């Protein structure tokens, strides 16, 4: 009979975390921030069709960084969860908190029980209803959830990006200012990012029932002009 080698649980978790972090750090980062009329999400993404930011429900958006197929699967599950809930109960009963918890549960479960953790970090943003608040849930690869009231940074180099962004952050700023600050924070001192390198979307109270809207080509270019 062969005895399996003993590996300390700390070591297992550390290895997995390292693996997931490496995968996530390979991808590009993303910034989400509250502005005066809603929530802005800016991702560095040269692709026009493989989205990192998408709509989940009337007042909810999803964003992910890391491995595309893994977070896209989570996105679709989120859309399904929200639509099923809205269909079974009412549109008002669909909320980000319960979805964030489900994501956390799933990611935590995969992290501890599966061979390979998911190499993703995701975000669920919501405009609260009633009221004019906003909530951003940040869920990491091991299922840790944090809720942010102002902004969140996902991906590699989060510390430096967040430092740059928080020094620019101002309460109640408008969309254009927030957008430019987010792009500058993502780019860093040595690069500049143009509209072609970015994927930008907002959850805005001005958009009616479905608050989600992408800022595309011309509009994005115009808003990026100082």
């Amino acid at each position, binding site marked *: 009979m062969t005895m399996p080698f003993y590996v300390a649980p700390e070591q297992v978790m550390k290895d997995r975390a390292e693996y997931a972090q490496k995968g996530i750090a390979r991808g590009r980062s993303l910034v989400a921030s509250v502005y005066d009329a809603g929530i802005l999400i800016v991702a560095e993404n040269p692709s026009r069709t493989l989205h990192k930011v*998408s*709509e989940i429900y009337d007042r909810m958006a999803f964003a992910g960084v890391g491995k595309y197929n893994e977070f896209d699967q989570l996105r679709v599950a989120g859309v399904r969860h929200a*639509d*099923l809930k*809205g269909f079974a109960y009412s549109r008002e009963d669909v909320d980000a908190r319960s979805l964030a918890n*489900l994501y956390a549960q799933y990611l935590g479960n995969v992290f501890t029980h599966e061979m390979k953790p998911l190499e993703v970090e995701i975000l669920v943003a919501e405009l609260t209803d009633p009221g004019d608040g906003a909530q951003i849930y940040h869920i990491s690869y091991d299922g840790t959830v944090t809720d942010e009231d102002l902004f969140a940074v996902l991906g590699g180099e989060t510390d430096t990006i967040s430092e740059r962004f928080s020094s620019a952050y101002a309460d109640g700023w408008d969309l254009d200012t927030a957008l430019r600050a987010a792009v500058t924070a993502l780019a860093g001192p040595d690069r500049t990012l143009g509209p072609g390198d970015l994927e930008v979307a907002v959850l805005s109270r001005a958009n009616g029932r479905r608050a989600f809207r992408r800022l595309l080509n011309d509009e994005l270019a115009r808003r990026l002009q100082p």
Partner: protein
Amino acid sequence: MGLPLFPPGDDPGPNFSALVQRPEALGTTPLGSGATAPPGPGVTVRHATTVAALRYAQGVVMAGDRRATEGNLIAHRGIEKVFPADRHSAVAIAGAAGPAIEMVKLFQTQLEHYEKVEGVALSLEGKANQLGQMVRDHLPMAMQGLAVVPLFAGYDLRRGTGRIFTYDVTGGHYEEADHGATGSGGRDARTTIKLGWSADMSRDAAIELAVRALYEAADEDSATGGPDLVRGIFPVVATVTSDGYERAGDDEVAERFAALVGRDRRAERP
């Protein structure tokens, strides 16, 4: 409810109706196609009646009266039969009100679900086809006397024109050239529209014609409600153009009715 994740070979894709029926999702069969017995003679079911749609220069107008009946009784005076299906289409219902409204809810969710999962909206033809499948799935209930016959219209962004589809209980859907109507007063409504329709009508003229069609239908059909001036209940009238679905305000519809009734009165004076 857990996170609805499926293995690759068993994934319902962007199809919400298929998803709802999964035991691990809701596990319910929408549209209750499991009915086995017809409603007995003592059971009366709410029915909704006349709805009509017509094309005009910028898109389509859709209108529906507000009356629901149970047998020969009026069950509801303010029921709505015209709904936005998504941004660029509208659906109206005739037949058993309960399953019809459930079908609309499923249809709306289905279109939005597809759009979110796939990242692009279905084509107008695709939407019409989806609704046809829902009507077909409902056929067993229709055979028990709970038929639902919708009317679908929308703005086709690819062709740049308004389009109208009518249905039968088997789910067959047929594109109409310029106008369509369904429900117990549908025939009267359709005749009225046929006589008054012309190509490239303005929005105002199209709304007026739709309102007139409902008025004539209510005149001939007891299950169709006319304008209720006492309670201030007017038909639901909506337009769908390249800018999307928009419901006309009650004030505007009331004004059209006033103009219509005023003209008729003058005409009938000896």
